[in-house]
């Protein structure tokens, strides 16, 4: 964003691209086509804010998260954390940088090692980062983390195995593992989408509490706009590898500018039976990220496409700290 930001960005992403080559045949080495998973994303996350990344499957949300954690390397672009370039950092520097970033994944049944006790699981980041010199110190840190995520009494959980815990408790353990080394950034990839409705609210409330108490910064990935609005300060909507709209969460939900954001909001199922037959206006499904439509990538599905759209729009100012990659942002109707 080129707007003056109230606080320093913790992490800054510039023109980030990740293209995966597609092999044409079983034996052929020709790599002429690419999956444009992330296709030119520029984004800042400020210290202490929760930024949510929303969009449908295949839009590049998870690839962007993996790039930020440097689990995969980008094709192009830069990522800086507190001014330090992640992509030029050597192994040792990267080790140190990683202690500032932790991840929470979607499936609490798959992300915890079934053969490890909760103590082993939660203390692993300490071990990996050689912060476990004294056993009593490790124990204190793990107990503190378990208390912070509401697993009480923490001592009773230390010797348990994941199978003894419910889905909600497992996700709490995953959160405890993420906060135990006191990171500044947590990347949470769909952390509540596998959970039961009743437990979802519990975990969302806990994440807000942890953010407040530990001054955390979140990148929160979700396909659910209502969840995104609830948890985040700012919201970025992705479509086919690009951010098409970004702004304060409340503002994006109440005054969406991009036709894709509008459709997502209209398609959102509500619990009000009287609102069941609203037309969403867009047709078809997301095109393949191998053949991105020329010009505005949303053009083939857009009900408002007009003569400007064959040229791909940049993010244009639509309001206060609110930007949309759509020419309609220039002349709000």
């Amino acid at each position, binding site marked *: 964003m080129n707007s003056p930001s109230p606080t320093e960005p913790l992490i800054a992403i510039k023109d980030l691209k990740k293209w995966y080559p597609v092999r044409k045949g079983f034996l052929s080495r020709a790599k002429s086509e690419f999956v444009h998973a992330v296709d030119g994303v520029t984004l800042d996350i400020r210290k202490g804010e929760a930024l949510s990344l929303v969009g449908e499957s295949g839009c590049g949300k998870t690839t962007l998260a993996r790039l930020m954690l440097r689990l995969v390397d980008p094709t192009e672009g830069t990522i800086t954390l507190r001014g330090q370039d992640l992509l030029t950092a050597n192994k040792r520097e990267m080790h140190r940088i990683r202690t500032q970033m932790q991840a929470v994944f979607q499936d609490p049944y798959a992300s915890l090692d079934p053969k490890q006790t909760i103590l082993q699981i939660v203390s692993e980041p300490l071990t990996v980062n050689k912060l476990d010199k004294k056993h009593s110190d490790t124990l204190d840190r793990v107990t503190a983390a378990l208390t912070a995520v509401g697993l009480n009494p923490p001592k009773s959980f230390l010797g348990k195995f994941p199978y003894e815990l419910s889905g909600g408790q497992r996700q709490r353990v995953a959160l405890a593992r993420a906060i135990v080394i006191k990171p500044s950034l947590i990347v949470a990839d769909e952390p509540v989408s596998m959970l039961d*409705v*009743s437990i979802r609210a519990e975990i969302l409330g806990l994440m807000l509490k942890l953010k407040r108490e530990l001054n955390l910064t979140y990148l929160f990935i979700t396909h659910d706009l209502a969840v995104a609005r*609830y948890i985040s300060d700012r919201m970025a909507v992705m479509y086919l590898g690009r951010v098409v709209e970004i702004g304060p969460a409340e503002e994006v939900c109440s005054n969406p500018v991009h036709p894709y954001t509008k459709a997502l909001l*209209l398609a959102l199922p509500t619990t009000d*039976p009287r609102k069941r037959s609203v037309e*969403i206006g867009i047709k078809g499904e997301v095109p393949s990220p191998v053949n991105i439509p020329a010009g505005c990538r949303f053009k083939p599905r857009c009900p408002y496409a007009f003569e400007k759209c064959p040229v791909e729009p940049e993010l244009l100012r639509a309001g206060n700290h609110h930007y949309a990659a759509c020419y309609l942002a220039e002349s709000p109707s």
Partner: protein
Amino acid sequence: MDGKILLHSDDLLRRSEDEMREVRWGKISMIFQGALNSLNPVLSVKEQIGEAMQAHGNFSGEEVDMAVSRLFKAVRLDPERRTNYPHEFSGGMKQRVMIAMALACNPEVVIADEPTTALDVIVQRQILELIRSLRDELHISMILITHDLSVVAQLCDKAVIMYAGKVVEKGDLHSIFESPMHPYTRALLKSIPKMEDAKTQELSYIHGSVPDLTGPVPACRFYGRCPHAQKICEEVDPPLGESSRGNYVACHFWRQIAQA
């Protein structure tokens, strides 16, 4: 096993396995959850739909072909693509194929088990609209199984809320969503983040977890997680009683809760 399952006053539990084979797919068919995984990857979708038809009657290849074209039109898929293989379809299209398959033998009842859970919001919306219009066009009765109350609000006329193996509330859609009576239903509805609510409004959630049904359970199974629970709830199973015309609730204290 105890009880009855009546289809047109015919008790299905008294039917033999052979007789049931006729009922399955012929009278009652099903749309499964994992559209992405429930199709056979090595057969064309036409062959798979044909397989379901052949199990219920003798059709020539031409008849199957025509029927599949018709079904494809009904679910708004291009009939030209009926000979394609599952990998050539997107997630939403595969779910349409599954719906076509469920309709292949003109069933009277279709059970849809989480039909949109694996789909994205926009595709989910399109599939729900399709299911709704097919139900109206073909006069099919439908049982929708879901954990997502908003899907219920989008599609159904009546709703039955289950908890730990028992019905706790049932009634018409508007009553359930506008004036839920059972503490469980009320808590479920309050735990969903909604666009209409103020962003700062705190979400409530249900403390604890579902009781383990292999062990002894309290008389009212929601006892232990219920904010209104009293001694009687642990000892006496609350009957499913009529709270208003056509609406039923199984709670000792629904009157007090409704007034509060």
